[in-house]
């Protein structure tokens, strides 16, 4: 059964009347990444789909969490603005999953673009965190906990977001003429630039390795980067995720740019791989034995990763978490959702 409140008031009412354990979902597109929800009801936020405000001069907006990313993009583009991070689905889902991160090394990511939120604890208690303005350090930033929480700490109802002007010039590029080590080296070099590509990804598919991305800024900077690194113009093409394998598993992780070469070298034959400019990567494996071996090696490299597609019981297993950080995470879950209602 799925509950789908029509507005924020209804959402609060629904939580206050305590329907028991809930699994939050935005559009539902990333649900397969979580462990099974068992007997929990699905609470779908798709109908909370109002763009409440776009303040173009201030470059901020407030949206309900069920607003589809594409709908916000359309509204923003008309005003010459953009939400400068990758990721799709609903905005609530995008921020709560944060499964793509930034498109470029040090570039804007959901954690940097979330200025504040109006939220509800599992018992329906409404709270606010952060602000609508681009800068505020008033109080503890509870809203930053939404990012990556996968809906398991509290329910976000409205998000206050930072926007950026759309660049005056942009061009997508593609390099598919390099072998793995050379492509990884170029990926690292581009991450080190004073003005790195606005978006970039290193992919390996059965067809080979390729580097894709988007240069943005002024026409002359775009041209200069194209020339300096032989970045041939290509059609816009961005991949948030590797395709979920029908059999086997999928890992998502984080690594430093210079580890791109190591990651490529570690890949099992035939495995699809994408690494975003912000350091997040995804790859698929043929099954648990390969994934476990990879997790072990990734940890030894200093990278982090976890299983995001596979048998339900394996989703979420990953490289070891620091024990102190794990204790804090458990404590936060207990503090914000003491009865474990959000699963």
């Amino acid at each position, binding site marked *: 059964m799925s509950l789908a409140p029509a507005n924020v008031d209804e959402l609060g009412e629904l939580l206050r009347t305590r329907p028991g354990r809930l699994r939050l979902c935005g559009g539902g597109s990333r649900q397969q990444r979580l462990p099974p929800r068992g007997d929990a009801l699905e609470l779908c936020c798709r109908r909370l789909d109002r763009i409440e405000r776009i303040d173009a001069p201030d470059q901020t907006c407030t949206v309900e969490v069920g607003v589809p990313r594409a709908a916000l993009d359309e509204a923003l583009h008309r005003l010459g603005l953009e939400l400068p991070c990758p990721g799709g689905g609903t905005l609530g889902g995008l921020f709560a999953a944060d499964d793509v991160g930034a498109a470029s090394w040090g570039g804007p990511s959901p954690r940097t673009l979330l200025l504040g939120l109006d939220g509800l604890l599992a018992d329906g208690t409404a709270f606010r965190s952060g*602000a609508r303005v681009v800068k505020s350090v008033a109080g503890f930033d509870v809203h930053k906990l939404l990012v990556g929480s996968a809906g398991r700490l509290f329910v976000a109802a409205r998000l206050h977001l930072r926007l950026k*002007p759309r660049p005056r010039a942009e061009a997508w590029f593609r390099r598919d003429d390099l072998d793995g080590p050379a492509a990884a080296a170029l990926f690292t070099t581009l991450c080190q630039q004073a003005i790195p590509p606005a978006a970039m990804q290193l992919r390996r598919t059965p067809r080979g390795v390729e580097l894709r991305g988007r240069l943005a800024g002024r026409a002359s900077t775009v041209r200069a980067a194209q020339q300096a690194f032989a970045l041939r113009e290509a059609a816009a093409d961005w991949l948030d995720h590797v395709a979920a394998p029908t059999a086997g598993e999928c890992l998502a992780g984080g690594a430093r740019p210079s580890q791109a070469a190591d990651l490529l070298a570690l890949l099992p034959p035939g495995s699809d791989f994408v690494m975003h400019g912000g350091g997040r990567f995804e790859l698929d494996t043929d099954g648990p034995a390969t994934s476990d071996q990879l997790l072990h090696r990734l940890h030894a490299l200093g990278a982090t990763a976890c299983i995001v597609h596979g048998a339900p019981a394996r989703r979420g297993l990953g490289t070891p978490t620091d024990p102190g950080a794990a204790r804090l995470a458990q404590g936060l879950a207990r503090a914000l959702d003491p009865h474990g209602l959000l699963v």
Partner: protein
Amino acid sequence: MPSPEALLTRELGPDRVLTSPDALLAWECDGFTVHRSRPRAVVLPETTAEVQRIVTLLHGERVPFVPRGAGTCLSGGPTAGPDAVVIDLARMRKVLQVSLVDLFAVVQPGVVNLDLTSAVAAHGLHYAPDPSSQSVCTIGGNLAENAGGPHCFKYGMTREHVLGALVVLPDGSLARLGGPAGARAPHELDLIGLFCGSEGTFGIATEITVRLCRDQQSIRTLLAAFASMRDACRAVSDIVAAGLVPAALEILDQATIRAVEASVYRAGYPADAAAVLLVELDGAADVLAEEAEEVRAIFAGHGALRVEQAQDASERKRLWKGRKGAFGAMGRLNTDLYVLDGVVPRTRLEQALDGIAAIGARHGVLLTNVFHAGDGNLHPNISFDGRDPEQTARTIQAGREILQLCVDLGGSVSGEHGIGSEKIDHIAMMYSPTDLEVMARVRAVFNPDGLCNPGKVLPNRSACAEVAKWPQMTARVLDAEAGRP
């Protein structure tokens, strides 16, 4: 039983445990001089292990403690009550690692902000967050305050540049939050994002991993003088509306210009201007030439009285000298300076400044404004004589009204200086008791016994006791305020 001081001395030796009243004087306050209180002792650790032993010991003895960097905070954050021990991290100032490939550094918390940039400058790198106190303040203090600075308009605040930290939690245990592979692992929470800005109440960071930025090819610094503050603010709005993203957009009002020009920070600003706007552009040289022309056209459109463009590094330094030295210059106008830190939506800047002027006039206080215009982050500064209780009271009251104005205009009571003890009562202007209760729950996960930097950020019983430690007059003002219908 030996006292906690004796136990600390056994750990660190007598040179690194200070207890005599004279020695403690230097730790009596931070940049928020209204709140003064001498701590019980000051300890000077040099390693994570030492911090861990100190915290474990104090936690065991139920003695409160307060981490401290350079003490430049402007909201009373590192000021300790008389029952608390200050853990001063200024001796932990080693740059532990620099990665020239992945562009990050691991530093101890006492590393001075500008020293980090100096350490990597030869490699064409810098650490982007640049509080105006950057020649003194520490990376640990920056992390705890989520510090900003003029160049944060383009490059973001401290949080955007922190990848991770090793933290001694208030019970003496360790937690490693984030790291070079990313601030948040895909299956973890953004704990470092939450820790950043926790104002020393979540634990003590003893190793901090920060991003380094590649220096831009070229920099253009322009200064325009305007006949009215309105023109300066509108020029800012137009620059932003044009899609330009300058590295910095700073405004100084006439009173500030005059204070600067009469001080050692003299920068040659036109003393008759109502406002000067400093715009810094960075990027590829050919692009900057185009952008500087656009900015000049916007200046002209708003009737700029004079426009200057730095021709070389020394001229750039001069143009910035007045801005960077503004607080110091204003500090000369009287014995004390109350630096406020409100934020409004950028489009409400004019309205906010009019309101601030009216509040200043109503309370008869000497007000100057210097601010990060691009972010709508105002720094109204009140010069006052802290020895005069009546003047202090008017100052505090004017400050309170200014922050309420910022909130009423849709903004925040703090853009970068934090809540500390200064705004512990003001935070309720922005948040409901429930909002604050949720924050308190989160703090309790890190700091369940409340021993780490008590009486800061969130109002509670102990906070009232803290306020009572302020000078009598301030406490009376706040009491009177609380008693109002």
